[in-house]
C-alpha cells in the first residue's frame, strides 16, 4: 500500500512539473511570436493609440516582470483577460471544455468499441481476408489527413445521403461525423497495436499450455490473451485519448465544433496570449490527468510496475 502511495505521489509531482514547463514554454513562445496590439486596432490607428493599448495590457513591461505577474496569477487560477474577447480568459476556455470533452469521449468510445475487437479478431484470424481488410482500412485511417476524411464524410453522409447535419453542436446527430473523423486515426492506431500485442501473446508458451489443457479458445483469448496484451493497449489508448482531447483543431474547424482546439488556433492568430495560455494549460491538465490515470491503471494491471 505504501508502495502505491509513493508511486502516486511521484506521478503527481511529475504532473505538476510538466504543467509548469508547458505553461512557461507557451508564455515564452507566444511573446516571441509577435505583438497583438496592431491586430486589435484599425490599420491607420496612430502610434500613440498603439502605445496606450500596449501599456493598458502590460505589454510594455520587461518580459520577466510579465512572467512574474503571469505565474503569480496562474497559481491562483487567473490567466488574465482575453485581449480579443475582453473578458476572463479562463472563463472563455472553460466554456469550451464541455464541447471538447464531449467530442473527445465520443471519438474515444467510437475508437475503442470498434478498434479493440477488430484488432483482436484480426490477430486471431491472422492472414485471413478479414485481417487484410481490417488492416487495410486501418492503414487508410492512419494515412488519410483528417480534413480529407471530414470533408468526404460531409459530402457523402450529409449532402448525398442526408443522414447527418453538416456541422454545429446540439443534438446527437451532430456528434456523429466529427467523432468518426476525429476518432479515425485513434481507431486505426489502437486496432494495429491491439493486433500486434495479441499476436505476440498468442505465440507465448502459456497460451500453448492453456490450449493444451483444453481451455476453450474464447476463454483463452478473454482470460489469458487480453489480460496480458492490456499494457501496450492501455498505453496507446491513453495516448490517443490525450491526442483526442488536445488535437481536434482540424476536426473542430471543419465541423464548426466550439471546442478548445479551434479557440487556441484562432487565438494564436490573434496573438491573444491569455487565451492561448489558458487553452494550453487546460489541454495540458487534461493530458496529464489522462496520463496519470494510465499510470495508475498500469499499476493496477501489473504489480511489477507499481513496485518498480
Amino acid at each position, binding site marked *: 500500500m505504501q508502495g502505491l502511495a509513493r508511486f502516486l505521489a511521484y506521478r503527481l509531482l511529475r504532473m505538476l512539473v510538466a504543467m509548469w514547463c508547458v505553461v512557461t514554454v507557451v508564455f515564452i513562445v507566444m511573446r516571441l*511570436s509577435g505583438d497583438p496590439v496592431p*491586430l486589435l*486596432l484599425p490599420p491607420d490607428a496612430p502610434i500613440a493609440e498603439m502605445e496606450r493599448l500596449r501599456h493598458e495590457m502590460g505589454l510594455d513591461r520587461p518580459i520577466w516582470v510579465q512572467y512574474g505577474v503571469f505565474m503569480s496569477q496562474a497559481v491562483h487560477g487567473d490567466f488574465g483577460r482575453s485581449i480579443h*474577447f*475582453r473578458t476572463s480568459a479562463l472563463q472563455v476556455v472553460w466554456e469550451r471544455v464541455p464541447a471538447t470533452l464531449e467530442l473527445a469521449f465520443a471519438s474515444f468510445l467510437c475508437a475503442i468499441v470498434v478498434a479493440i475487437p477488430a484488432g483482436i479478431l484480426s490477430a486471431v484470424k491472422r492472414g485471413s481476408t478479414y485481417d487484410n481488410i481490417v488492416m487495410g482500412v486501418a492503414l487508410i485511417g492512419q494515412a488519410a489527413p483528417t480534413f480529407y476524411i471530414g470533408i468526404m464524410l*460531409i459530402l457523402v453522409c450529409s449532402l448525398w445521403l442526408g443522414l447527418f447535419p453538416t*456541422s454545429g453542436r446540439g443534438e446527437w446527430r451532430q456528434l456523429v461525423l466529427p467523432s468518426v473523423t476525429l476518432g479515425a486515426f485513434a481507431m486505426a492506431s489502437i486496432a494495429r497495436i491491439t493486433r500486434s500485442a495479441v499476436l505476440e501473446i498468442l505465440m507465448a508458451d502459456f497460451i500453448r499450455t492453456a490450449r493444451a489443457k483444453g481451455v476453450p479458445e474464447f476463454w483463452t483469448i478473454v482470460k489469458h490473451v487480453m489480460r496480458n496484451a492490456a499494457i501496450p493497449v492501455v498505453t496507446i489508448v491513453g495516448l490517443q485519448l490525450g491526442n483526442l482531447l488536445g488535437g481536434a483543431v482540424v476536426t473542430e474547424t471543419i465541423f464548426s465544433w466550439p471546442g478548445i482546439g479551434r*479557440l487556441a488556433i484562432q487565438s494564436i492568430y490573434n496573438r491573444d496570449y491569455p487565451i492561448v495560455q489558458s487553452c494550453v494549460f487546460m489541454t495540458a491538465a487534461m493530458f496529464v490527468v489522462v496520463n496519470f490515470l494510465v499510470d495508475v491503471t498500469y499499476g493496477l494491471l501489473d504489480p511489477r510496475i507499481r513496485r518498480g
Partner: protein
Amino acid sequence: MEDVGAKRDGITVDGLARMLRDGQITRRGFLARAVGLVGSAAAAEGLLARVVGAQTTSKNTLVIGQSADISKLDPQMSTTVNDIAVTFNLYDNLLTRRLDGKLYPSLATEWKLVNPTTWQFKLRPNVKFHNGDPLTSADVKFSFERSYDPNAKVITKSILTTIDKIETPDPLTVVIHTKQPDPLLAARVAFYAGQIMPKAYFQKVGDDEFNAKPIGSGPVKFASWVKDDRLILDANRDYWGGKIDVDQIIFRPLPELAARIAALLKGEVDLITKIPPDHVERVSKAPNTKVEGVLYAGLYCLSVASQKPPLDSKPFRQAMSLAIDRQIIVKELWRGQAGVPTGLVVKSDNHFDPTLPPLKYDPNQAKQLLKEANYKGEELTLETPIGFMVMDKEMSEVIVSMWKDVGINAKLEQLEYSVYQQKIREKSFKGIRWTDPTSAYNDPDGMMWRHLAPGGPNAYWFRHPRFDELGNGARFSVDEKFREGAYKEMARLELEFLPLIPVIQPMELYGLQKYVEWKPYANQTMEFRRFNLKMRRA
C-alpha cells in the same frame, strides 16, 4: 423528378408545376390535381415540396454562416467584417448607405451643412432602444464622444477625429462642429463608430456588461451567444422601420469553406459569406441556391513597398503594371467575378470618372520601358500571404510569370498571415506586397488619400508636392467641384508614379437560398431591414 412526366387528362406534373409557379393555381389547387396524377396525398405533398420548396419557405429564421465567429458586440470595440455584419443590425446610425451607394435617413430624418464646419442632424421622433429607453440627442452625443474618448476602451478613435464639439439644443437635434471643414462627416457617421448606443444603460452597466448584453435600437435584439457556435438575435417588433421579415437571425461561424457550402446546399443555413469565384458555379447551379455578388468598394493592389533598385525607377514600375494582363486574371482566375480597375478611384467612389479606360496590358511597351529604365535583371520579390485575400496566392503566381514573360527577374515568397502582418507593421517588405484598401467612405479621401497621405498604410516612399497639396485641400473642402478636379489629377499622378499598382476590383460573393431576397452591400456590411430582406413564402 421521376414523377414529373406523369400525365393524366392531358395535364402533366410539369405543367402543373408551371401553373403553380406562374400563380395560375394555388398550392391547394396543385395538391388536389397532383393527387390524381401521382396516386396519393402524401406523394402529392412531396411533389409540392420538390416543385416549390426550393423557391419558397415557411421558415421564420434567417441563419447566416460566416467564415469566423464574431468577437465583440460593442460596436466601438471591433471593426472586423464578421463583427460589423452583426452590429449594423443591433444598432442604427444617423444615416445609412444603401445599395445605390447614396446616404439615406436612418435615425436622422434630415441633415444639412449649416456652414463649412457645422452640421445639423434632426432625429427621428419616438425611437426606442431595445430596453424601452427613448433615443435622444444625448445618446448620439455620448456615442460619438465615446468613439474618440482617449480614456475609453475603444478602437474607433481614428474615425470621428474631425469633430470639435457636439451640441444638443433639444432632444431631437444634434449639432456637430468640426475642427476644419469635413466634407465626409455625413459619410463617417453612417459607418462604424457612428452607431448609436444607449447612454443611460451603458453608464449603468459599464463596458464589459454592455459588450455581453448589448442594447441598441436596430431591427434585431440580442438574445444569446454561445461563442464559436451561434449568436441568436430576435426581431425587434417595435422597430421604427417595421419588423423585419423573420422572427430571428442566427449567425453561425463556419470557418471551413467546404463545410460552409455544404451547409448551404443542404439547407441548414440560408446565407453564407465569402464564396471564392471557383465555387460560384456549384452554388448557383444547385437547384435551391443562388449567388449574389457586388463589386467590393475597394481594390486588390500591389504595393511598391521599397525603393530598392529597380523599384526606384518610374519606367520600371510602369513596365510592371503594363505587363499584368488583368483581363486574363479576371476571366480565368476570377471566372468573371471581378472588374479591371481604371485607377485608384473605384467605381463606387464619389468622383469616379467613367470615361477612363481600364488599365492597359501591353507587354511590348513594358519591354520598351524596361530598356528605358536600364533594367539589368535585378531580382524583384513579391511577398504574398495565403488566403488573406481571395486568390492572393494564385494571382501572385500568375503575375510573377507575366513579369518573367517581359524579362523581369521576379520571385515569389509566400508568408504566413501573422508574419505578413508583422512585416506590414515593421514596413520590412523586400519589394512588392499585396494590399486590399477599402474605400471607407465611398470617397477617394477614404482610400487613395488615406493610404497614400504622409503616414498612410501604403505611403512607403511616395511623396509628390502636388499630390499632397491636392489631397490635403480636398480633405478639408466642402466644394465638390474642387474635390472632383483634385481627385482626377491625383489619380493621374498615382498612375504615373505607381506607389500602388491596382490589379483588380473583386466581387464580394454570397451564397443564398433562392427564397431569400437580399442584395449584398459593397462595403461588406450586412444590413437586414424590412425594406431589403424578404423571405419568399408560398
